[in-house]
């Protein structure tokens, strides 16, 4: 159960962090967000990742929890990346070529 909650928090955390990045906003959120919102999303994202650490450490003990947290971070980031790429793949080809960074 601890694993599931922690993974959910990591996914939510990375989703916020991804949504906070201007470059990914058109794909991930559907539009550009203003600076204030991006900032708040970034803070929320990091807070959620820390919350996952707290959940892991309370649920699994400090040592085991810290190890599990690293693994949960990897999984969370991986799933968010997967979601982002699904969004990019579904976007029309024309729009895909446009953004340059």
């Amino acid at each position: 159960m601890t694993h599931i909650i922690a993974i959910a928090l990591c996914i939510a955390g990375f989703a916020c962090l991804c949504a906070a990045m201007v470059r990914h906003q058109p794909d991930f959120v559907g539009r550009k967000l203003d600076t204030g919102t991006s900032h708040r999303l970034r803070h929320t994202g990091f807070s959620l990742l820390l919350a996952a650490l707290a959940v892991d450490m309370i649920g699994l003990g400090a040592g085991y929890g810290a190890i599990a947290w690293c693994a949960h971070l990897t999984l969370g980031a991986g799933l968010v990346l997967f979601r982002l790429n699904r969004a990019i793949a579904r976007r029309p080809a024309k729009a895909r070529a446009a953004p340059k960074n």
Partner: protein
Amino acid sequence: MKDGFRQCMAWLHTWTGLLLGWLLFAIFVTGTAAYFQEEISRWMKPEVTAAPDRDAATQAAITYLNRTQPDAESWFISPPSARSPTVSTFWQPRKVAGEEPRKRRGRRGDTSATLDGQGQPVTARETQGGFFLYRFHFDLHYMPVYWARYLVGVAAMFMLIAIFSGIVTHKKIFADFFMLRFGKGQRSWLDAHNVTAVFALPFYLMITYTGLVTLATMYMPWGIAANYSKPDAFFEEVFPGRAEVERSGIGAPLVAVTPLMEIARRRWNGAEIGSVRVAMPGDGNSIITLTRASSGAIGSRGESMVFSGTSGDLLEKSPVQGGAMATQSVMIGLHAGRFAGWGLRWLYFLSGVGGTIMVGSGLVLWTVKRRVKLADPARPHFGFRVVSRMNIAAIAGLPAGIATYFLANRLLPLGMEARADWEIHSLFIAWGATLIWAIARPEKRAWVESLALAGGLFAAVPVINALTVPRNGISGLLSGDWLFVAFDIAMLVLAAGFGFSARKAARATTVKSPRRARAIKEELATA
């Protein structure tokens, strides 16, 4: 200076990554598989089904050893666990005065036995199972263990250098955190390499460093050499359980081990017993040492309790470990992940897969990056050809070899002479064949064919399994034999992965026109 430094690091990253990259790839593949070594062993011994009671099985093993090896110097028993249904035992024959002590290495068949829950030798096909994959990831094969471990150590050191120089080289860890663009040639390979590297970075740092720690006394023997007359004196001091008492010469029966296991379990807050060692069985001074299972805590070296073998009295507990020893124990535990339950074990495995992809994509990246700079892409220079062919043999060949290893387990005749050895040989035959194929065929076709071969072989595993043994994924679904279900699914996922890669490789367009090459080069220069 800043750019100069980064370029230096990029150079270091490129060459430390490449030079032993294929070996690292093999270490990552087999090491990752070793997270499931017990499960692989169980799959490779389908005859063994029962999951016996731990205590009863241990007692039965002692009864067996008492009957067959009453004169041994010591017995060593690994009770069955949740992951392994058999009792492994081995014994040390008593040294006879004037006789040369036996060589430690070599075949252990005559000093070991695998028993079932009733203390009867297990009748299962001869195989090394997952243990071979585990041993290969640091002992390699067909070469002296000593050299293999040094080679693996150098590779791990290179890996550590490659990780640190890679972190410096990768300028935008956070800005490019989620950057994975497909269908853009070199850029895509770089993205894939970066993403797999960054996502499990803590794991790679941990696994590489702790990997070196597991063999640290071998790689850095000077501390011991400077302080002890001989290395054995150091190990005697660090592992005091080894000190032996003299034989009394008076025969006395052993006490029952089950109550002692109960005492130890209570002392260790319910953690299981990982091994039972009986020194001088049958003698009046016999000693029983119980050691905590490494699954019970992160530290791999369990505490131990020493009992008198004749009275069952507690003689000593293991002393509290010093800081350095405890640190080493935890590091080894972190590396091997024996403490990990199912959830964490799968996450370990996935991180290992990530590492495999990271090393593999790095190797491919070396060729992709240089291909656009080739004077004549149709006729690359010798070094380029070596790397590109070795990449095929490593990345597609080793997985194909492992699939062959599984298939050989099912297809080789059961009564065959040196069967376990031939399973291993077949892995290397398949691997070697891929190398020859990679050299003989045009590069792109070799990629497609080798990847397809690996996929096909993995896909064949569930089929051949279903045709040769009664347990398989579908019957497992009905009877709750989850090991076989999971194994079949894992094989099919691997098959799909390699099949997908083969299709991608077949569709990939190699850069032919110089203009396109220049365009890519310019894009890269600005990126």
